[in-house]
């Protein structure tokens, strides 16, 4: 230990500061506290966790070797495999992992108060989420930068690999549906928002033409031009919305928007990438990073007070935003931000091929995820600085609020969060919307919060409407990019899977398999989107838990892979690093999945809900919210599909658990390490 204890002193001080801030956050009940306490608690915890836990995992558990060539070095080709400066790679990795997930989940979780979400994000990311990302990055980096499916196949066998691939595809479908649903909820009945988002399509195409023929490859220039176009679209969107001719043309019901999105998804995924996807990706990526940075600065400058109580009565279940009690449902509602299985696909995607030395892995893998957790913390703060009455009026389904300011205010006040109808009317007016009641999905809530914070820094109350639509545009833009890119990725996954049975289907060049696979992929997420849109409870209520369960199960799979690798490396005594979060995720997801299937409460369980409606239908009765016998049948059918999906996810994760245990037993019986790393010597340089 060179330097002895003195070099730890600053870190001990930091740890104490973080602990005190956390204590303030946890025990304050009387007066509203400043949001900065949460920021300080999170920042200090993350720095200390990085300095000690991430480096411990790197040095002792993984035994990273800075001298060992990474794929970027021994396979260097200047294209896919490039040794990259770690700061540059950190930005790349962060931009790839952070999306709508860490923004929406915490907003929904705020129905239990700010405390449960804060604690889960901080402890979840330090002990589970960041460990998962780091571990998968490590495993992939030592194996030529291969993908998660291939890694599972290498270490756990071909059957396990295929099961993981099928699970991944299903998760992708649910993610796309839930993201699209958020856009639908944010844009329904909002001509201003709809116009600005619609304007991005021709705008992106103009940018595409510019980078294709006018000034090829000038991303900086074209992005600036695009940004100007976006700002003009937001400014003039107000006039469009107010116009008696154009306003109604951009006003859509959720069902219409659903069909527009499905059609859009199908067409966009077949268009050449340079025309729409790539240019919009520039806009959405840069806007995302810019808006996140601005939000961080805004929160620090304005130091808003938290209006939401630390805990609400809904920790015991029965909340209007999503159903279920704190355990296990909080831990699946905040997936991205605390632990997100989807990151395993990115940590085994482009990042391991760009990492210059193994010594950079903690910063990229662990540090990148800490940064995402910070985004989640900001979203949670955003939801918590709003008046609770406003939060619940926005996030409770229309079946509860009745849709008008008077009924909504009465309903929310009855929940114990008093608010006057005039406040709801005024807030809608301030942000330039017809109504903000029952705008579920999280995005509008976050947009109101961002408008509040930004207008306090720039422009004053008069700018609120601009900032609100800026925030909606920023969220919708990168969700649409994700829908487009995700449909493409899903198409290739599907072609791969079908190709196992029908080899000719695998050809990515030929037209018919591509169109068929794209169609199937769009139909799959479109089905869940339609179901969510027509769900009288607002859809998010039903779909978000399914998404959370699937995402956390993928995380469990990734952590099981990490555990297997540690045992096969003969690092048994350090395996708790991945075993502990694996067990926690298995407990949460399996119990949440079981409750979704077998709970007697129809608000929680799909099966109980289906039974309740089936029995009523058999009696010839129509239960609210269905309006007809057809609607009853539709609800019953949807319930069974969702229940089937939960059962499928449970089957995937439990079968992989069996493979994991089997592989670990075999590894423990072996004398020497059995792990299958790819050594640099084995691969000739390009």
């Amino acid at each position, binding site marked *: 230990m060179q330097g002895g204890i003195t070099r730890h002193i600053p870190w001990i001080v930091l740890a104490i500061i973080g602990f005190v801030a956390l204590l303030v956050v946890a025990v304050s009940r009387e007066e509203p506290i400043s949001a900065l306490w949460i920021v300080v608690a999170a920042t200090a915890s993350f720095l200390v966790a990085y300095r000690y836990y991430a480096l411990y995992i790197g040095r002792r558990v993984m035994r990273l070797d800075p001298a060992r060539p990474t794929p970027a070095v021994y396979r260097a080709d200047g294209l896919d495999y*490039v040794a990259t*400066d770690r700061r540059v790679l950190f930005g790349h990795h962060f931009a790839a992992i952070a999306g709508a997930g860490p923004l929406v989940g915490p907003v929904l979780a705020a129905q239990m108060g700010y405390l449960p979400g804060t604690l889960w994000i901080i402890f979840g990311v330090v002990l589970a989420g960041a460990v998962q990302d780091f571990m998968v990055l490590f495993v992939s980096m030592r194996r030529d930068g291969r993908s998660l499916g291939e890694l599972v196949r290498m270490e756990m066998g071909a059957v396990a690999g295929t099961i993981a691939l099928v699970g991944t595809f299903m998760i992708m479908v649910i993610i796309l549906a839930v993201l699209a649903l958020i856009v639908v909820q944010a844009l329904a009945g909002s001509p201003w928002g709809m116009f600005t988002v619609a304007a991005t399509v021709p705008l992106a195409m103009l940018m595409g033409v510019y980078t294709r023929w006018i000034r090829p490859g000038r991303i900086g220039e074209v992005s600036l031009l695009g940004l100007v176009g976006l700002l003009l679209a937001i400014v003039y969107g107000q006039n469009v919305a107010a116009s008696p001719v154009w306003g109604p043309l951009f006003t859509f019901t959720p069902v219409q928007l659903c069909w527009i999105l499905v059609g859009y998804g199908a067409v966009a995924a077949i268009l050449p990438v340079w025309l729409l996807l790539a240019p919009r990706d520039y806009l959405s990526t840069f806007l995302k990073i810019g808006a996140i940075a601005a939000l961080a600065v805004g929160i620090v400058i304005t130091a808003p007070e938290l209006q939401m109580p630390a805990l609400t009565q809904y920790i015991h279940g029965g909340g209007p935003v999503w159903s279920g009690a704190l355990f296990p449902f909080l831990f699946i509602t905040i997936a991205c931000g605390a632990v997100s299985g989807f990151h395993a696909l990115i940590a085994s995607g482009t990042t391991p091929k760009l990492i210059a030395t193994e010594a950079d892995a903690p910063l990229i893998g662990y540090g990148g995820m800490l940064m995402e957790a910070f985004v989640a913390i900001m979203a949670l703060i955003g939801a918590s600085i709003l008046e609770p009455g406003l939060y619940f009026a926005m996030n409770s389904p229309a079946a509860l609020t009745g849709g008008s300011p008077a009924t909504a205010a009465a309903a929310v006040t009855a929940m114990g969060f008093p608010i006057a109808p005039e406040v709801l009317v005024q807030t809608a007016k301030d942000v330039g919307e017809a109504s903000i009641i029952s705008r579920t999905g999280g995005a509008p809530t976050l947009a109101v919060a961002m408008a509040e914070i930004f207008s306090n820094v720039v422009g004053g109350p008069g700018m609120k409407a601009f900032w609100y639509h800026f925030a909606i545009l920023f969220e919708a833009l990168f969700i649409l990019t994700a829908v487009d890119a995700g449909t493409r990725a899903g198409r290739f996954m599907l072609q791969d899977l079908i190709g196992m049975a029908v080899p000719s289907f695998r050809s*990515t060049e030929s037209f018919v398999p591509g169109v068929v696979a794209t169609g199937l992929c769009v139909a799959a997420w479109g089905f869940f989107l339609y179901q969510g849109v027509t769900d009288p409870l607002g859809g998010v209520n039903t779909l978000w838990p399914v998404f959370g369960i699937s995402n956390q199960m993928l995380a469990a799979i990734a952590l099981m892979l990490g555990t297997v690798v540690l045992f096969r490396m003969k690092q048994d005594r350090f395996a708790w690093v991945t075993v502990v979060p694996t067990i926690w995720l298995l407990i949460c997801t399996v119990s949440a999945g079981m409750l979704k299937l077998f709970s007697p409460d129809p608000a929680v369980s799909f099966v109980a809900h289906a039974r309740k409606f089936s029995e009523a239908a058999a009696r010839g009765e129509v239960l609210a919210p269905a309006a007809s016998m057809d609607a009853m049948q539709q609800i019953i059918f949807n319930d069974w599909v969702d229940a089937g999906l939960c059962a499928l996810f449970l089957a995937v994760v439990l079968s992989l658990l069996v493979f994991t245990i089997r592989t670990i037993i075999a590894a423990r019986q072996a004398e020497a390490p059995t792990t299958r790393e790819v050594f640099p010597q084995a691969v000739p340089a390009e």
Partner: protein
Amino acid sequence: MRRLLSLLRETALLMVGQPSYEAYLEHMATSHPDRLPMSRIEFFRDRESTRYGGKGGGRCC
């Protein structure tokens, strides 16, 4: 300052899937002096089709 700006530029470009063209040229010059490297525009198109080709172009929710 100059160094910082070029780092930021490189980061922004890699975020949208465009690695450094200079690094590519350097690699070609040292490892494959016999081959003609792609032009800047060819390189841009090549990286664009790789990023959005569906494989490896993942991003999160």
